[in-house]
């Protein structure tokens, strides 16, 4: 059994706690949170030890890994402390508030040969994996354009005062929703190296943006658009999609299905000319425990497997999280250069 602990029990932390709690190879020994309500709930109903100071928890419990799901501004000191104490780290997204912090942590993790993973869970959704596979097969030929989108109903009224309304703390749609889309584009299509025409729009929030629009140019020269809005209540929940246009066709992919149009049949893949629809029932990654989606369990399974096999894997490393942080910075800097046409 691998001993683990969690710091931060908000929505994601509780979800990770349940998934780790159900994992057959993990002994979740302790949790840490500053909210007395959350800590008391664990004290009362569960057998894990509870702490309000993560340093004391790590010192006393000596876990092999820690899962960090605190607000983003705490990631840097907590991850650093955990790495310096020889712990493998699973850290929620986004990685850090500044690329310099992320750079330091990524180098530290690698120098100590510690497993590191960021919670960009979309990479554990079968349809997005299939999109990557199809693009690697060059099924739609040379790429001409892409769009990365995410919409959902997080802030739909003018109110709310949590850390998410403070830009310096990594609140806002850019760090939250948009980071997922940027990370998907970066790992599936290509790494963005330039942002232009960026718009960070406030719709209902006072201190932060509710929507992010802009153009990303990738290292391979391809450009595409980013369109993200977390104040869109025409969506029941967060809906993320990637559309890729190529000379030989087009692919539209989201968490439930992948649809593609081919100008010509592809014999190698056994695909006909015209539209093909495939859904998640075909691509879902099997998991032993399900909570809210296979991807949340599959990413934890992956992290635990990496610890067991002592091998850093290719999905969601700190280095990849760091690149997403760099793109976020590019978008902010580009926005500052623009005239503020909007609020």
């Amino acid at each position, binding site marked *: 059994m691998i001993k683990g602990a969690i710091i931060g029990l908000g929505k994601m932390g*509780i979800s990770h*706690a*349940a998934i780790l709690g*159900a994992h057959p190879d993990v002994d979740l020994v302790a949790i840490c949170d500053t909210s007395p309500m959350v800590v008391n*709930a664990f004290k009362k*109903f569960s057998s894990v030890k509870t702490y309000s100071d993560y340093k004391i928890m790590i010192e006393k419990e000596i876990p092999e890994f820690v899962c960090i799901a605190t607000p983003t501004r705490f990631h840097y000191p907590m991850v650093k402390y955990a790495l310096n104490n020889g712990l493998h780290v699973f850290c929620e997204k986004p990685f850090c508030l500044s690329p310099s912090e992320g750079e330091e942590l990524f180098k530290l993790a690698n120098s100590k040969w510690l497993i590191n993973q960021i919670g960009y869970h979309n990479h554990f959704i079968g349809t997005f994996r299939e999109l990557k596979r199809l693009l690697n097969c060059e099924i739609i030929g040379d790429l001409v354009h892409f769009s990365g989108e995410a919409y959902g109903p*997080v802030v739909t009224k003018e109110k709310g005062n949590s850390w998410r309304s403070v830009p310096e703390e990594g609140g806002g749609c850019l760090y939250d929703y948009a980071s997922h889309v940027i990370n998907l584009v970066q790992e599936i299509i290509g790494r963005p190296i330039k942002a232009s025409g960026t718009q960070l729009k406030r719709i209902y929030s006072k201190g932060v943006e509710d929507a992010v629009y802009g153009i990303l140019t990738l290292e391979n020269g391809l450009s595409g658009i980013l369109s993200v809005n977390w104040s869109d209540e025409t969506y029941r929940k967060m809906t993320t999609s990637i559309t890729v246009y190529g000379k030989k066709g087009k692919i539209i992919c989201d968490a439930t299905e992948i649809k593609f149009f081919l100008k010509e049949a592809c014999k190698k893949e056994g695909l006909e000319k015209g539209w093909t629809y495939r*859904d998640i029932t075909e691509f879902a990654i099997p998991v032993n425990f399900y909570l809210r989606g296979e991807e949340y369990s599959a990413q934890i399974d992956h992290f635990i497997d990496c610890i067991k096999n002592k091998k850093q894997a290719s999905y969601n490393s700190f280095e990849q999280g760091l690149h997403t942080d760099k793109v976020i910075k590019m978008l902010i800097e580009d926005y500052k250069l623009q005239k503020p046409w909007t609020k």
Partner: protein
Amino acid sequence: MDKVIFGDNQFFAINHASEEKAREQSIRFKEDAAIIKVLDYAIELGINTFMCTTHDRIANICEYIRCNPSKFINFKIYPCMPYAHKYANAVTELGIIGTIKQYVPGNPFNTFAKGGLAYLNSDFIALMKLLIDAEMKMFHGIKTPVIFIQNVLVDMILGLKMFTIFKEYDSYIRSNYHAEPGYITMNMPALLDALNIVGIENPIICSSINKIGFRMSGGIEIYEKYLQEKCFRPMAMQVLAAGALSPKEAIEYLNKFPKIESVLFGASSKVHIQETKELIEKNLHDLPLKNEFMHPIYNDSSKIVIRS
């Protein structure tokens, strides 16, 4: 429980295989009248149980049911609470305390007259009861013989190993609502073990049961083993595996498991409702001593497996 239970996903843009279809459904069911029309089809076809989330719009449907008692004489609702996205989005925006403030009627910190927040911090069961009462308000005057907790919450409690919460829920639903507690889960075998550990025997468990093992966590083999060997009252959902299976092959598969009492399904057209209903009635076994724990089928000693 009836063999045929009519669900509500189609009314609320929930489609596990297509965002596009989900959008179409949300447009089609924009008005409550469109939902009521489909419910009318179901009733005409002899379906008398509607299983629904505690979505805000269900309150309007409940109001309609109360205003038209003659139409809904034998009609029952199985509420499923909570409507998870309502809370999940609120937690992202408002935090946990903010969410409680928003959804517990009145000021929750006054509701707990003695000690306000401090009391809330320690008495989770009192909070759970307040939230159940808040969710159940919309169903007053309507028969709710089975009351379910939604899978997100069930599976969270399951993973956190906070099994005594199930026990508290179970007794509150029985004592306060004189109803049978039900559990929706994506992890049926693990849940049944957990419920048994806290002394909940022969529970009603609604879980995915389909031929291709879609959303049957841990694998189809252990699900089939539990369906054949364990004591519980299974309700099958996601039998069509989000549309990957035809209704005929999907429901014929259920015939292998005589213990399955009910099938939950949603459809929007009269033809589909009729077809699915007939298939369910044809393929689901009759339980002669319905709801009886010691039914001979359940008590076959050759099938008893001792849990480790």
